């Protein structure tokens, strides 16, 4: 009887140890999938950006899994809807990190929503956040231990757009921006960017209520101000609304934009009015003929057949691929810790879609380069290769 009891205890202990040591459930080691997650606005007004990004990242992981994954392990990518809401993002983070036990957050969306999750994900759970679509200067200055990005800061994008307008010879530039602080922060750098190219440029600003649908008064004001060029710091549906109204009122004023306006949705909504629109993008245009973009379009067609190629999905696809490229180099268990360590000396990673990415201890933002694009023949085409914005941010 006593022996039977001891045997029962021993067997029970063995069973508990076996269960507790099953780290493959958390994607950390062993042969199980590498569990990673992300939050996207899949509902709400920003869903038009969030859904393509989710599909792009998912397509990347599915394509990798079809090739056997990395180092013999496949990815399990879990996407949660945050509706672009900070509180919902925290809930999504808790579900991903606390319940699903992901080892990293990869290619998630949103600056303010993601920042809301930092205390829990980065500080409490110590899970790295990699390659978020979004970002702010204070995310990387100083570098946060578990936070790594790929997206050129919005501020640099604004400076780059301003510089391009000035390089094209425009002396009197009007910045049209939405009123929330996030847009103001970007618009602030258009002028220094423009002046870095041509100190004689003058820059004015016109602030528009976010989610404005009727741009006729705005077009009227632009007509009255008569700038040589406009720089649009707006969400792409509003940029499209402005371009349509400007075309309707006969305003032949060149327009420039930052990365969120370099979206195929702009062309879809704005139609012919978007011809000649120039923007700085994070990546090569979705219909670029390069082999890497063809690979991306093939993966999208296979794993997200309802999704049209777009800058958003291409960026997320490349963000996921660059993450996998770095993780491939991990020798040993793929854990939150080993991923963060790998990113501290990673790159250069060449996706052919994003600029070359390189991270180190001091620099957690993989790139600050942008790709100039222009609408020609109803699609975005690349203008030159990746280029650096003027060094005005932080000065």
């Amino acid at each position, binding site marked *: 009887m006593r022996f039977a009891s001891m045997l029962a205890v021993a067997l029970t202990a063995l069973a508990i140890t076996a269960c507790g040591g099953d780290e493959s459930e958390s994607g950390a080691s062993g042969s199980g999938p590498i569990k990673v997650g992300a939050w996207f606005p*899949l*509902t*709400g*007004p920003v*869903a*038009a950006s*969030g*859904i*393509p990004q989710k599909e792009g990242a998912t397509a990347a992981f599915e394509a990798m899994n079809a090739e056997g994954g990395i180092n013999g392990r496949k990815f399990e990518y879990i996407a949660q809807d945050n509706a672009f809401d900070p509180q919902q993002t925290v809930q999504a983070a808790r579900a991903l990190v606390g319940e699903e036990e992901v080892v990293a957050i990869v290619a998630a969306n949103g600056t303010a929503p993601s920042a809301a999750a930092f205390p829990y994900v980065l500080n409490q759970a110590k899970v790295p956040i990699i390659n978020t679509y979004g970002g702010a200067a204070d995310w990387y200055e100083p570098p946060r231990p578990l936070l790594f990005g790929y997206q050129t800061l919005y501020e640099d994008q604004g400076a780059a757009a301003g510089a391009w307008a000035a390089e094209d010879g425009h002396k009197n530039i009007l910045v049209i921006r939405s*009123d929330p602080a996030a847009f103001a922060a970007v618009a602030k750098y258009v002028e220094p960017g423009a002046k870095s190219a041509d100190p004689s440029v003058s820059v004015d600003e*016109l*602030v*528009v*209520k976010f*989610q*404005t*649908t*009727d741009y*006729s*008064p*705005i*077009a*009227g*004001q632009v*007509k*009255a101000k008569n700038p040589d060029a406009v720089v649009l710091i707006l969400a792409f*549906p509003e940029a*499209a*609304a402005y371009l349509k109204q400007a075309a*309707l*009122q*006969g305003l032949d004023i060149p327009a420039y934009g930052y990365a969120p306006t370099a979206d195929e*949705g702009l062309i*879809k*909504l704005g*139609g012919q009015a978007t011809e000649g629109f120039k923007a700085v993008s994070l990546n090569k245009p979705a219909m670029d003929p390069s082999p890497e973009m063809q690979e991306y379009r093939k993966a999208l067609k296979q794993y997200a057949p*309802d*999704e*049209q190629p777009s800058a958003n999905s291409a960026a997320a696809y490349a963000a996921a691929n660059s993450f996998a490229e770095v993780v491939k180099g991990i020798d040993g268990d793929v854990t939150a810790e080993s991923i963060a360590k790998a990113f501290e000396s990673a790159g250069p990673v060449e996706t052919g879609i994003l600029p070359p990415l390189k991270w180190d201890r001091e620099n957690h933002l993989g790139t600050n380069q942008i790709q100039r694009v222009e609408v020609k023949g109803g699609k975005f085409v690349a203008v030159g290769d990746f280029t650096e914005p003027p060094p005005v941010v932080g000065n």
Partner: protein
Amino acid sequence: MDELLLSVISGISSGAVYGLVGLGLVIIYRSTDVMNFAIGTIALACMYLALSVHNAGIPLAFAILVGIAVCSLFGVGAREVLIRPLGPGALFSALVVTMGLSLIVEDVTRNIWGGEPRTFPALVEGTATISGATFTNQQLLVIPVAAVAMLGIAYMFKRTPLGSAMRAVAESSGTATLLGIKPQRVARVAWALGMGLAALGAAMLVPTVGLTIGGFAAILFRSFAGIFLGGLTSMYGAVIGGVIVGILDNLAATYVSASLRDTFVFSLVILVLLVRPQGLFGEKSFARV
């Protein structure tokens, strides 16, 4: 001068849309005491349907009529299934139900048609230039459509047995029943009519702004401002209030600040309501104590 004309005429056009949606809200509210927060998302979803029907080869005008008809029927269905079981007087519950319905419809719309923005063809192509300001014919079409709707609904309410029945039910459902009027039938007609008008408003708007999920939120917001400004008890007020909001919105954007247009407009609405709580065209109501 053309800047003023541009602001005013495009404001009237936008305001006519707010007015049509507002008219739908008022009809439903007056007949059933329900403020239908789902009116915008349902109307927009029906325009996605109309676009699909059109893309299947049906002429645009018929496709839009299909969208309007489906919107009306959906409205009746929603009322019968979700609102009616709440019973009379459950105003807050009904409000919450319509809010929830709005979220559900938005989600379903996204799942069916995707999150990508879509263009919607115009019913009338071409542009017109008035004193240097150019408008699309689609923008200008909204104005007579809203005017006809407003006059038609006002006539119906004042001169037809159905309209009398709806006014009677709005006054007192119990008394109307005693007079042989069927309040539930009146409620169904009100929901069908209200939802149909909202769908008509959406059909007038989407060729200009495109179809985007969640894209009707700002419109609904202004429609509410219009009906409170015009008066919850007035059909004329719903449309004229919407038009006033549209004009003020654009004038504020042009001459005050494009970022403060909402502040300006709603401050004015609040001021009017402080002076005249029943709105510009509403009737004061008294309760015997």
